[in-house]
């Protein structure tokens, strides 16, 4: 008899509803109040998303204080890359002892964002920046390089035409 009454009165369902109701009311009275802890959702495209300092975004060729590319074409990153996403053609430049890359090709389609290239670099010439909005309309835009038809790899500029974050 007691069990029969239990099936009639759904106590455990009511407990669950009470929990969700409590949450609902808490959020209703605190939503849009700015820094409320219960307001969990980021307003992402309107407010730029924050990433952690170690975040691995797309590859970027760094420059020194004089605005020159640091890379000396030692090919360490090419060897470290698991997916062969990097190709370097070494070249020369007047007034510089070391080599400079004539072209530094980076195929982002193949990149797995592991960061092994950055670890292998002993000159701190490359970095994975904080850019993560990497969608493009044309496949060719995925190939990054130096000058010419390529999107520049030495600038932190966004690859996508419309980007909200990554302006540093």
């Amino acid at each position, binding site marked *: 008899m007691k069990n029969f009454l239990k*099936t009639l009165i*759904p106590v*455990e*369902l009511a*407990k*669950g509803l009470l*929990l*969700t109701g409590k949450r609902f009311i808490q959020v209703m009275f605190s939503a849009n109040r700015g820094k409320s802890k219960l307001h*969990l959702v980021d307003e992402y495209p309107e407010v730029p998303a924050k*990433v*952690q*300092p*170690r*975040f*691995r975004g797309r590859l970027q060729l760094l420059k020194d204080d004089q605005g020159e590319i640091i890379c000396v074409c030692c090919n360490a990153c090419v060897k*470290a890359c*698991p*997916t062969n996403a990097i190709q370097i053609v070494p070249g020369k430049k007047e007034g510089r002892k070391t080599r400079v890359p004539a072209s530094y090709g980076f195929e982002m389609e193949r990149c*797995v*964002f*592991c*960061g*092994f290239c950055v*670890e292998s670099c002993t000159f701190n010439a490359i970095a*994975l920046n904080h850019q993560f909005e990497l969608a493009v309309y044309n496949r060719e835009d995925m190939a990054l390089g130096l000058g010419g038809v390529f999107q520049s790899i030495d600038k932190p500029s966004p690859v996508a035409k419309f980007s909200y974050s990554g302006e540093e």
Partner: protein
Amino acid sequence: MFKSQEMEINMGPQHPSTHGVLRLKLRLDGETVKYCYPVIGYLHRGIEKICENKAFFQGQVWTDRLDYCSAISNNLGWAEAVEKLFGITVPRRAQYLRTMLNELNRLNSHLVWLATHAMDIGALTVFLYCFRDREKILDIFEAFCGSRLTTTAMRIGGLLEDVPEGFDKMVKDALHAVRTGLVEYETLLSENRIWLKRTVGVAKLNADDCMAYGITGPMLRAAGIAYDIRKAHPYAAYGEMQFDVPTRPEADTYARYLVRLEEMRQSVRIIEQCLEGLPEGPVMAKIPKVLKSEVGEVYHPTEAPKGEIGFYLVSEKGGANPYRFHVRAPGFFNAQAIPLMVQDSLVADVIATIGTLDIVLGEIDR
């Protein structure tokens, strides 16, 4: 006038409840499953063969993509296998941090499992609550490893970097969120009559069958066998940790749910111990820059959230890459039991079966 006929239908590979690209051929008599044939291989990428052509340190990138819900466990298993092959000793601080990351990853994986399993059965609220708490754990991964899903967290000989700034607080926040979250999931599910109707006695697999099929992890523990590699063959810093191995005798879907929830509590316990007893020191052992192997072979099993993940490596003399690389994926062995578990059950219970197995097709197809 009326005649009955068995009907064969396909479930998947693009069905949302099949957790990826699993395809099940079902022969039905009305709503009863008479025969089930799982078809796998839709996500095959040849990871084992690729890794045989890559240097030892590069192989880690593909272990991320085996079971993408628990990348760090795969990274850890792979790293320990390679270290065993080369005889490298990892510093104690790195061991502790690895253990901590691995347990955070277990929380992450079990939260995804609970979320998707409950949603398959029809409880959407749990899905949202689980993902709310999982977000905090993913933030920790992002702060520590630089990536949320494909972490590439380990290095041969230790870890790349020490803890980031404010790591303690992040972990404590996440643990608090999980601990309060667990109470909420239990309030929503444990006594819920709909949940009980859909899980109690569904997809039974007794201990003998588990042993016969090579099933490991929470599936095995829910059948009453207290086998956990963290206890049986301690690796990383698990030998110094205090934790229990939860078991249940019922061997059904509800028992697996209880076992996994208890495992999450134990994970929280282990992480707290790691935080308290975190030793000082380096996080990276001194290893040669280029690893050249001798002739040898090694098999190293570790306890991933889904079960025993083992990495088998064969090396040749002077080789820069493994001669043979094999992954013993827990999901593959667990998925073998699907036909047995769904025999003579209803179609709706097939969904519950797939959910309770906690399969990720990335590691089954490899």
